[in-house]
Every structure is written in structure tokens, then in C-alpha cells.
């Protein structure tokens, strides 16, 4: 298997993915590939032939792609194409949905996220998530950020930890004088940055963002996007967005999902996965071209 096998598999799924399945052991190959790869291309997630079903309906069809460290990976596509399902599969937030079933493998740094021995609480400790609607706890600003570290045994230097998280979320200057006040008194954009601060306070490895700016006004959106550029130096970010311009602005790589007919069902399918510039300027699939030029979606 070549050093770029994963990348190719992502771009030319499903034929290449099928070949990989036939020829190689993706799990065993994962370690080798990481050794060969240059540091900038360190792989965090290897998603191998993942399909998601809710009961008898399939939400996501056979998806294979790699997500790289210290990059922003955007997931775009029309409504109902499985973007959020895909994102939530990366930290097992779908587990509580009745009849959720995942086939294939999601490897996080070589470890199978869905292996029986994998603890999903531990998974989420390392792979944090920010939701579409800001959801601060009904506690003070300080306690929102400090709550998870306290519960995870990171009590030493808690004040510094809270300050650091708020600084990294570009919120510190706005709230440093009212840390004891309720988080519910913040504006929507501030609340969302607080949620980001809360997520990074436990120093996760990956941050998943599910349309983090879609409930915010343009100014707050701009501040969140700017934040993503700085956060990627420290974390690996995966962002689902409705907004193609947003993907073009913040993402290093972009995955385009769309609904595809599989048998009689319409199933969310990965159409194209490429560096953002390539995907937006020279898409290889006509459906991608139609979507990014506004022909549908």
C-alpha cells in the first residue's frame, strides 16, 4: 500500500477503496503509513467503508476517507445528505439514537472507535464536539469552562486552565471581568465561543463542529471562522457546514456529500474529497461542480 493510499481512496472512492479492501489490511497498514508520511500529513481518522443505518433506512453509504492532523476538514452538502451523521460517528454521539448501526471501521490514530473494548466516554474526552445551537450550562462563565476539567480530575491549576481555554477561544477579554456571571447572559456568538472554550478546556485532540455558526449573525460567524484558523495549529478540526463559502474560507480539505440512489433508497454518499482549493476550482465530479456553482442543493 502506498503512502498516499488513504488519500487516493478518499478521492476516488469507491473503486480504489474496493481495491484497498482486496489487497491490503487497512488496520495493519495504518501504522506503516503514519511512519512514512510527512508530519503535516499525520492521519488522525481513517474512515474505512463506513455505512450508517437507522433501523432499516441507510443514512450514510460506504464512506472512506482520511482526516489529517492540524488541518480543518470541512464537510459540505445539501440537507439530509448524512453530514451530521458522519460527524457524529467520529465521536460516537450517535450511539444513543435507537436502532443506530454502523458498519465498517472508524480508526482514530489506529484504534477502532467502535471496538467492544473502546469506551465511548473516553472517546469523547479526546474528541470534543461543538453543536449548532450554543448550549452553555446554566452556570457561571467560569463554571461552564471548569466543569469538565473538575469532573475529569484536572483540578490542578484550574484558574489558569480556564483562562487559557477562554483565551484560545478568543473570549477572555470580553468576559474576564464577569467570570462569575451566568453564561446565559452572553450573546449568541459569545455563547458559542464559550462552548468552544468549554470543549478545549479538557485539551482534546480533535474538535468536531456541527454547523457552529449557522445560528449566529455574520459578525459572530466571522469571529468563529477566524478562531478556527488559530485553533487548527493546536487541534484537528472537522466542521460540518451548510455554507460553502465558509468551507472555502476555513478548510484545508473539503468533503462533499450528496444523496445518491442506492437500490431504491436515497443514501448520503461521499461524492468527492479533495484539498479545498481543488474541490472548489477544479472538481472532478460533475455533481460537485453543480453543487458548488449553485445548480442544486
Amino acid at each position, binding site marked *: 500500500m502506498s503512502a498516499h493510499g488513504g488519500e487516493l481512496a478518499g478521492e476516488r472512492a469507491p473503486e480504489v477503496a474496493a481495491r484497498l479492501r482486496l489487497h491490503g489490511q487497512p488496520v495493519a497498514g495504518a501504522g506503516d503509513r503514519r511512519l512514512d508520511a510527512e508530519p503535516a500529513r499525520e492521519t488522525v481518522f481513517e474512515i474505512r467503508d463506513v455505512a450508517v443505518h437507522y433501523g432499516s433506512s441507510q443514512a450514510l453509504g460506504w464512506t472512506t476517507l482520511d482526516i489529517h492532523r492540524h488541518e480543518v476538514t470541512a464537510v459540505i452538502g445539501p440537507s439530509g445528505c448524512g453530514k451530521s451523521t458522519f460527524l457524529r460517528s467520529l465521536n460516537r*454521539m450517535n450511539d444513543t439514537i*435507537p436502532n443506530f448501526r454502523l458498519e465498517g471501521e472508524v480508526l482514530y490514530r489506529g484504534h477502532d472507535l467502535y471496538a467492544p473494548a473502546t469506551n465511548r466516554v473516553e472517546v469523547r474526552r479526546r474528541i470534543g464536539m461543538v453543536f449548532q445551537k450554543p448550549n452553555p*450550562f446554566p452556570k457561571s462563565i467560569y463554571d461552564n469552562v471548569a466543569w469538565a476539567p473538575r469532573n475529569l480530575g484536572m483540578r490542578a491549576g484550574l484558574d489558569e486552565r480556564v483562562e487559557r481555554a477562554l483565551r484560545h477561544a478568543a473570549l477572555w477579554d470580553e468576559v474576564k471581568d464577569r467570570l462569575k456571571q451566568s453564561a446565559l447572559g452572553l450573546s449568541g456568538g459569545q455563547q458559542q465561543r464559550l462552548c468552544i472554550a468549554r470543549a478545549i478546556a479538557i485539551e482534546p485532540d480533535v474538535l468536531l463542529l456541527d454547523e457552529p455558526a449557522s445560528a449566529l449573525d455574520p459578525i459572530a460567524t466571522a469571529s468563529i471562522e477566524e478562531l478556527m484558523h488559530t485553533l487548527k495549529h493546536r487541534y484537528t478540526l472537522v466542521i460540518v457546514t451548510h455554507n460553502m463559502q465558509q468551507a472555502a474560507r476555513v478548510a484545508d480539505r473539503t468533503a462533499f456529500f450528496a444523496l445518491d440512489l442506492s437500490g431504491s433508497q436515497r443514501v448520503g454518499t461521499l461524492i468527492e474529497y479533495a484539498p479545498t482549493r481543488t474541490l472548489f476550482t477544479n472538481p472532478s465530479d460533475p455533481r460537485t461542480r453543480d453543487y458548488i456553482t449553485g445548480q442544486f442543493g
Partner: protein
Amino acid sequence: MALSASALRDRAPRTAGTPLRPSGNLRRRMALSRALEAVATAAALFAVALLIDVAVTVITNGAPAISFAFLTQSANGLSGGGIANALLGTVVMVVFGAAIAIPVGILVGLFLTEVAGPRSRLAHLLEVVLDMLQGVPTVVVGIVVFGLIVVPQQKETGFAGAIALSIIMLPLIARASQQVLAVVPPSFRQAADALGVERWRTVIGVILPAAAGGILTGAILAVARAAGETAPLLLVDSLYHPNAIQLQPFGNGVPSVPMFIYTTYDLPSVSGITLAWGAALVLLTGILVANVGARLMLSRTRRRMGL
């Protein structure tokens, strides 16, 4: 499409020129609506009037009995005295009963909302049982406790009374807790889940604090209800020294305000009746204050949760 564009054009002007007053069937519906609104308003006013009547009767009859001595002296049979020992006894029994019913009730509520899934058969069964328990006549609760505790011990005790009151409080607290916990926004749980914190820590650190006011409200309402219960006490805690303060619930009967009202009203004296009204006024005031306080607390909780 059934209607062609020309058909629509033909129909449109028919009402176009007429004044914007209700016509035809709308007029009839509006009359019916107004009639029903009037009936509903009358029923609501009637309910309020009844409550006011109860309050006025209790106040006019009870007020003459109220004095500092009435509240601070123990009962003294026909020669008057006060309700201090009965009040303290009621407090002891209610606190004891609440100490059992509140934790168990909250745990039952947590089981229903946080542990059992939405389609859990056990949870559904538990809900039915709680509703049945809530509907059980309190005199039946009294008999059960009589058989379980009074008969083996061969004496009536404040402890038996407290147990009976806790059985009456439990379904109220459990159901109230369940309802409050159910409206804690799921986004709180989701946020906590995404932080890699175990669920039980989330329950203690986020969900219970968010619901605390509402749960407390339910508990206060249950306590207020239990404080006025008479039937079970008649069976399990009616033999006590009527004129002495008795705070030790094990091994002794403990006096209570409802039993004071019941026994004093039967005394062959006019002053006894006044004393009973006085005690009723104290009981009613306590329950009213608890209710109002509980509602205030509930509205505060709802604000906190952003509802």
C-alpha cells in the same frame, strides 16, 4: 391541479367588495366560542370563590383563637392551652417522612428520565404504580402501615405516622421530579456527553442543579399535602399524651395539628371548637405559604433553564 387559473379568477371577486365582518358559518362559530369562554370563566371564578369561602370561614372562625400563647403553649384539654406540641409533632413527623420520601422520590424520577429508556417497560409499569399509589385513599395507607408497623410493635408511634406520610408523599415527589427532569433541555446532556464526562457526574453536576428548584417545589407541595393528612394518623398515631411536647417518634405517639383539630372539635366545650378553628387557620396558612413559595421557586427554575 383541479382548478384552472381562469376558474380561480372567476371565484376571487365574489367576497372582494363586502365589508370585513364575520359572515355565514363564521358568525355561528364565534357565538359558540364566546359561550364556551363564558362557561369556562364562570367555572374558574366558582373555583376561586370556593377557595375564598374556605379561607374566609377559617379566618373568621379561627382568628379569635390566635394568640402568642396559642402558638407557644401545649394543649391543655378543656381549659384551653395552645397547639405548640401539636405543631412540633407535625414538624417532626413531616420532616422524618420527607427525609425518606424526598431522596427516594428523586431517585425514582432519575430512574424514569435518565436510566430507563423511552420505551422501557419497567419505567412504564413504575409510572402506573406511582399513579395508583397517588390514588390510594389515605385511610388505606393508614391501615397498611397499621398492619406493618403498629401491630408488630403493639403500639402507635410517631414513626408509624411518618412512614404513612412518606408513602403519601413519595408518588407526588417522584412524579414531580420526573416532570421537571424531563424538561431539562437535552442539549445540556449532549454538551456534557461531548465533554467525555460520565453520565452520573452529569446528573449530579448539571441535570440535578438545573432541576433543583422544580424538584424542591414538588417536594414542598408534597410536604404541605402530608402535613394536613388526618386519616392515616387516626389509625397509626392517635394515642399520645395530648398535653405534652413529644419529639421522639420511636416508641411514642406524637401529637399533630390535624389530630388536634379532630380531637379538640369533639370536646364538649365551645372553646374547644374555637381552638380547632385556630389550629385549622394555622395549618391552612402554613400550606398556603408553602404553595406560594413553591410556585415562586418553580418560576425561578424555569427562567434558569431558559424556558
